[in-house]
């Protein structure tokens, strides 16, 4: 359409001139909106997107149905009668063994584990990364290499030695023990993250501060910290999702009354006693997944940056 119009315009402007070569295509290349390529591209993306969204949809739908409706209908159908009873039950009444307090206790346990773990692991790792990046000392690289290797070693190899160490410290089975474990196992990735970030800062800054007489902690608190807010946010995202989602350490290093939410969730859903209440199970699952999902949707690009920074350079 546009092209025809512009052609006409051209023709009228050039009336009389015999310059036919100047007619013809003008402006942007015509692009059909529904080319075969586009249909294929968006079609595939859409199908894949549906595959990825389906479980979330099923979770939400199931958690809002009553048990009779679940037994009759199919899992993809939207709820006929929306009920929040399963959510209430999952939060406050669901049973694991003899204990019927629901997920709430696991939630608070997880919070109690999460907060000190995140703070401690990031504090330790950021100082480590800073020492490695700016105060290179002999042997530092060896320790760092071991640390990075440690990130790939299966945790199972270190499980029991840590049990012994924690027992020696009197922390085995307590929340503080688990905090320590999270700090230890969060160290490789976080140290790498902070080291790479501090290395990327201009070294002149560090040198100038040293010339001005600032010491190790002076430079860290007055120069490095204020400049590294984004990387701290990335680290917090990594740790919050990682620690909240942890299951193995929770089940190994805590006792039933200090179990984190994931462990408790698994015990509720996979308990063999009683009738399976799928709607309650799905509500509980959603509740547990809510924290990392919120972190993910709120943090957006920073989350991507976090995993990319941690993974590509690892």
């Amino acid at each position, binding site marked *: 359409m546009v092209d025809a119009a512009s052609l006409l315009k051209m023709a009228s402007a050039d009336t009389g001139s015999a310059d036919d*070569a*100047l*007619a*013809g*295509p*003008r*402006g*942007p*290349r*015509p692009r059909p909106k529904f080319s075969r390529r586009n249909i294929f591209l968006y079609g595939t993306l859409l199908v894949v997107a549906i595959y990825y969204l389906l479980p979330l949809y099923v979770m939400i739908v199931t958690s809002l149905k009553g048990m009779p409706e679940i037994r009759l209908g199919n899992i993809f159908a939207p709820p006929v009668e929306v009920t929040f009873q399963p959510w209430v039950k999952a939060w406050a009444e669901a049973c694991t063994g003899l204990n019927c307090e629901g997920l709430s206790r696991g939630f608070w346990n997880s919070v109690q584990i999460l907060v000190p773990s995140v703070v401690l692991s990031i504090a330790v790792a950021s100082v480590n990364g800073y020492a490695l990046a700016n105060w290179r000392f002999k042997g530092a690289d060896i320790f760092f290499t071991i640390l990075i290797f440690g990130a790939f070693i299966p945790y199972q190899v270190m499980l029991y030695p840590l049990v012994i160490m924690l027992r020696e410290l009197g922390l085995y089975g307590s929340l503080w023990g688990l905090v320590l474990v999270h700090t230890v196992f969060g160290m490789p990735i976080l140290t790498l993250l902070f080291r790479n970030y501090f290395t990327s800062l201009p070294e002149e800054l560090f040198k100038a501060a040293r010339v001005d007489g600032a010491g190790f902690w002076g430079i860290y608190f007055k120069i490095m910290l204020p400049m590294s807010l984004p990387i701290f946010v990335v680290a917090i995202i990594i740790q919050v999702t990682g620690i909240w989602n942890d299951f193995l350490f929770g089940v190994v290093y805590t006792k039933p009354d200090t179990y984190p939410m994931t462990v408790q969730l698994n015990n509720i859903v996979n308990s063999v006693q009683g009738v399976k209440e799928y709607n309650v199970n799905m509500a509980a699952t959603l509740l547990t997944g809510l924290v990392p999902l919120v972190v993910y949707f709120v943090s957006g690009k920073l989350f991507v940056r976090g995993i990319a920074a941690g993974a590509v350079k690892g």
Partner: protein
Amino acid sequence: MASVVVRDVSLNFGAVEVLKSLNIEVEQGEFLVLLGPSGCGKSTLLNCIAGLLDVTDGQIFINNKNVTWEQPKDRGIGMVFQSYALYPQMSVEGNLSFGLKNQRLPADEIAERVKRASEILQIEPLLKRRPSALSGGQRQRVAIGRALVRDVDVFLFDEPLSNLDAKLRNELRVEIKRLHQKLANTMVYVTHDQIEAMTLADRIAVMRNGIIQQLDAPQAIYSRPVNRFVAGFIGSPGMNFLDGTIEAGAPPRFKAGDAVIDTRGYEFADRPETGTKAVFGVRPEHVMLGEQARGMPYTCEVAIEIVEPMGSDTLAWTRVGGQNFTFRTDSEYAPKEGEKVLIGFDPARASLFDADTDIRL
């Protein structure tokens, strides 16, 4: 007949107008340089000619064929990039022949073309190597070779020398000039380096903000810049600009502070009105010193403030009419700081611009 014609080409990225209705005609065998500061749209224009970017409006002709909607590969062009853009996992030979293989040319034809291109560029010993094993200069030769084997009439260069160090840049500049003489192809060359532009070009298009400021032969651009931007952009060290006003007289006189310059010999485009605010531009290399200055239409005595020896010549900083003024002199006869010297220049070689519109008077 023109080899490349750009007709009313505009390009918008969203609301940003990158190119504003440009018109250029490049003759067959001509070497055209697009020159301008970064962000002026020169590379964008080149990408439009190559077909890597869609124009928003206008037409592009290559060899009398309207190629506005053609794919890059069908436009009969070769292109050389700043970052060389060699395929890193292929040998030099593979780089040269990959495009030809995709055109399904017969093998002996490909071999023939690769041989010829590598002879011209003297890269025969490198054919089996990977790009990572080559120096910057060699890589750029291979990149030129990749354009060469395509056997096309129009070469496009997108800042091809910017990634090289100064010495190599000079060498390859001469090489490109030689190549142009030998092949007599049309070449469109983008650069921000005015020396490259001056030395290589048959014609230069100076661009700013998506508009061509002046399209002319290098010497014309140097001696008769159409506006203050072009005047300041071409030439190193930059032109001296004195702010002042036009005063009545025949010919009119230019007054800046205590300096009054008679414009005898200067070709005005239009006789300016008295009292017009104007800028008087004179190139440092057109200023004479001492004995030589005496013969000049305009002379004055100035105190030297700073001297910058540059080896071949020396740059001296002083004041004329209360404004900063530099001139260039032979290092042998360079004045000393604090010395009072006589300088002079010929207004006929100078440029006068309207202070409000920046256009040449």
